[in-house]
């Protein structure tokens, strides 16, 4: 636990040690605010449905960018050799990195709280669905992050890690979307809808906290962190 915390602190500080962290957050906030406000006054409703509707797609670009350097850079620069000869277990390192990136995404999300607060001032939005939306966003982000870390472990090129991360997230997201579901035979529809990353987010952001959705996201996180561990083992 202390070892994980040590790695966490190091990774978390690294986000803000260079301008990169601030740039990420700025771009994320500009994109979310603009996409939100673009439709807000047209619909003329005090609701964040539009915001949570685009979030899975913004995350698709934003989250793999947060994780792409986590392993790729370590291997490119060679610091992996220092890190992995310290008396730390692999899973402690992986977990530390994951939690640091999760904290970073959580901070980015927290900064968008301006939107619901503004909405609450000018109208009366459904608080339950907003709280659910943020919990769902964090879970969805965690799943994307785990996938991104796995992708980063596959290569020493950050761009490759970024694109592979996006590709895996995209496939898992689209799996449960209507565009795919329409093409499937009826018995398969609920299966794919369950496997897709989006449907669970939609159900949580309606304000319904179902344990199945939470278990789903945690399983994705555990699976990809485990795959990341296996990749590291194979590289030894």
């Amino acid at each position, binding site marked *: 636990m202390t070892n994980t915390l040590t790695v966490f602190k190091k990774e978390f500080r690294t986000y803000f040690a260079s301008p990169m962290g601030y740039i990420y957050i700025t771009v994320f906030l500009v994109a979310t605010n603009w996409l939100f406000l673009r439709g807000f006054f047209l619909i003329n409703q005090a609701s964040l449905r539009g915001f949570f509707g685009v979030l899975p797609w913004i995350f698709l670009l934003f989250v793999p960018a947060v994780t792409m350097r986590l392993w790729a850079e370590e291997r490119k620069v060679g610091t992996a*050799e*220092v890190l992995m000869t310290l*008396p730390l277990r692999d899973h402690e390192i992986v977990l530390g990195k994951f939690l640091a990136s999760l904290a970073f995404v959580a901070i980015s999300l927290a900064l968008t709280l301006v939107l619901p607060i503004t909405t609450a001032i000018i109208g009366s939005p459904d608080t339950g669905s907003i709280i659910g939306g943020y919990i769902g966003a964090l879970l969805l982000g965690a799943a994307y992050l785990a996938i991104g870390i796995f992708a980063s472990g596959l290569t020493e090129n950050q761009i490759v890690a970024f694109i592979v991360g996006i590709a895996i997230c995209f496939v898992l997201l689209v799996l449960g979307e209507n565009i795919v579901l329409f093409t499937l035979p009826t018995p398969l529809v609920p299966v794919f809808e369950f496997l897709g990353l989006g449907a669970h987010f939609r159900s949580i952001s309606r304000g319904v906290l179902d344990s199945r959705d939470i278990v789903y996201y945690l399983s994705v996180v555990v699976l990809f962190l485990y795959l990341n561990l296996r990749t590291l083992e194979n590289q030894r």
Partner: protein
Amino acid sequence: MIEATNLVKRFGPTVAVNDISFTVAKGEVLGFLGPNGAGKTTTMRILTCFLVADSGTATVAGYDIHEDPIEVRRRIGYLPETAPLYNDMTVVDYLNFIAEARGIRNGGRKAAVDRMIEVTSLKGVTKQSIGSLSRGYRQRVGLAQTLIHDPEILILDEPTSGLDPNQIIEIRELIKRLGEEKTVLLSTHILPEVSATCSRMIIIDQGELVASGTPEELSNQASREGTTVVSIRGPLPEITSTLAAAPWVADWHQVGESIGDLHRLRLRGSEGRDIAEDLFRTVVTKGWSLAELYREQVSLEEVFLRLTMSERGDAAKEERSEVNPE
């Protein structure tokens, strides 16, 4: 302190380390010598548990690298080649991180970091980001990382590569000082470094161990197979037939032109024996006279070249001759 037995590591079809065994005694400074790509780094990475050997094992400070990798890592200070560092971190942040990861926490941490800054003379740059440091400073930060937990064993991969002559001397002095109380395994392809710092050396080539011993032992061993040069004044045909008949001469040839009846020859003794005395006696009994007689000295460079190039073509030889940067 380190005991490696039959280590093998393959990367796809290439065998990087092929059946290497050696031991390093407590308090010894062992030089790991070999051309680039010989398998030095791979062997060190196996010992530090960065890589896992395909077969064979090693114990470090009594712990098995497969069974107790964490305990092994605790006892080793490892400086990888070119000292990779987190460029975005400041020197002090980096050392704090390493100290914490090494289990030096709370009160002990600040003391350990301050001590390292002192030992490696990093005082002026503690608040700078590592990416902005010069090569020499980076190497010192790397060394500070290696030494911060006061390890029993140091594994240093080419600790002086890329440094200027003053820094090289500085680092060598430091290694020598550390070698008095610690066990050190260091790799290099620079020969003078071995004689300057190591008490014993191992030469590996193409993943295999080709020789081990003290620098003196190895050059003695090679000079036993060395040649003797002799200048004899006498009739050439008789000298020729006598030498051809002598059982203690493996082969011989004339060096240069004869000057009158003075002939200069280079001989190699059979089975590596020293033939100086045999030559002397022969010259005396035949009634010729002896103008010079000496054994050719073999330098460490020649030992190294002979051991690592025996089965290769001239292309490799030329490539190798560019290696020595000093």
